[in-house]
């Protein structure tokens, strides 16, 4: 059936298109991480070595554990920031955003330092390649998240958000929690199990 003109826009009003957008984006991200996890588990099952990782490799479990605590704490501060702006508390929003950004930055810098001191490189073995692949993919997401957080923080200091209009905080917060959820899975599977 042809149209002489573009058909009228017709979209459901039940959920905001912005939220649908971030949901679809996160769906695609889950598939991307899923493919990296598939490679990691395939490598682990095929090599079937005990202990894992194969000697002489050692994973920096303690440092990564502290880093995990830092990242999870950043989710608490992110949630605090969102709740603050919902109640009209601008100072709480600004403090929450600054803390979240700093905690995220600390996580990323710690990971960079960890890469320098870990003692193996991407091309050494399949374990090393999958380790850097998964943690590096997550690190890229943290970097993107930090860029978003920086924009949110600047906007919060410019007074762009109010109890009625804080979509920018809500959507950025959803992304940041997603990044943290992915790290919990990465840390558990790559470092602890």
């Amino acid at each position, binding site marked *: *059936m042809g149209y002489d003109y573009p058909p009228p826009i017709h979209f*459901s*009003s*039940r959920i905001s298109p912005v939220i649908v957008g971030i949901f679809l984006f996160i769906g695609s991200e889950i598939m991307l991480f899923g493919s990296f996890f598939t490679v990691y588990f395939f490598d682990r099952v095929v090599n079937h070595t005990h202990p894992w990782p194969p000697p002489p490799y050692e994973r920096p479990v303690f440092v990564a554990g502290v880093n995990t605590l830092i990242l*999870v704490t950043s989710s608490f501060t992110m949630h605090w920031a*969102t709740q603050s702006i919902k109640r009209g508390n601008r100072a709480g929003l600004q403090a929450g955003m600054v803390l979240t950004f700093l905690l995220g930055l600390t996580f990323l810098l710690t990971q960079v330092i960890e890469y320098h001191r870990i003692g193996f490189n991407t091309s050494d073995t399949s374990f090393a390649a999958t380790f850097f692949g998964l943690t590096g993919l997550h690190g890229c997401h943290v970097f993107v998240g930090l860029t978003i957080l920086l924009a949110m923080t600047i906007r919060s200091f410019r007074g762009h958000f109010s109890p009625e209009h804080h979509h920018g905080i809500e959507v950025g917060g959803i992304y940041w*929690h997603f990044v943290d959820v992915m790290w*919990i899975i990465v840390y558990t599977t790559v470092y602890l*199990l």
Partner: protein
Amino acid sequence: MRNPFRSEAEAFRLLLGFVVAAALIVIGSRINVWVGVAVAVVEAGVVAWVVLFRGRKERPIMQAPPPHPPGERRILVIANETVGGRALLSEIKQRAAGARTSVRVVTPALNSPVKHWTSDEDEARAAAQQRLDKSLAAIRSAGIEATGEVGDGDPLQAIEDALRTFAPDELIISTHPEGRSHWLERGVVSGARERFALPVTHVVVDLDAELKSPTGY
């Protein structure tokens, strides 16, 4: 089940759930690998059970239409195959008597699930438009001011959309008789009463009986 990334607060709760779930798996695997696997399987089972059987249903949000200028009665009619039914027209006439009345007819573009998910809805919208045109002609011939639109395939969503632009005083839902009506089976009428803060009238149109009767429109 609600989308866990629908809001920041829900995403945060999901994160806390992941922290607890991951901690239990790690503790289990420290005892024995198979205990860790068992914990993961149990957790996956619990999640599947919650999603399939205990999923929190979306609580309906009571929608109230915005106010409209006084001196006019506005009726929103939602009907699809029964949109041209005599019983429906008679109900509209009865309600329009003695007052300046404006009627908005919405016919949802009902579609098959496969066509819906592939966005192939041209045919459904064209068929709904045809029924709507016939119905509008019949209502206007009775001297009642009427406009109409093809709505969302979900009748409740179509009502909600129309509420935002038309601001009705009351809602009339027309369906086939019980046993033949998909809308009644899906609880469209009761859902509308639960979800919309305005009087809802349910009109049953028996098209077969009307066809047999000598006075059809």
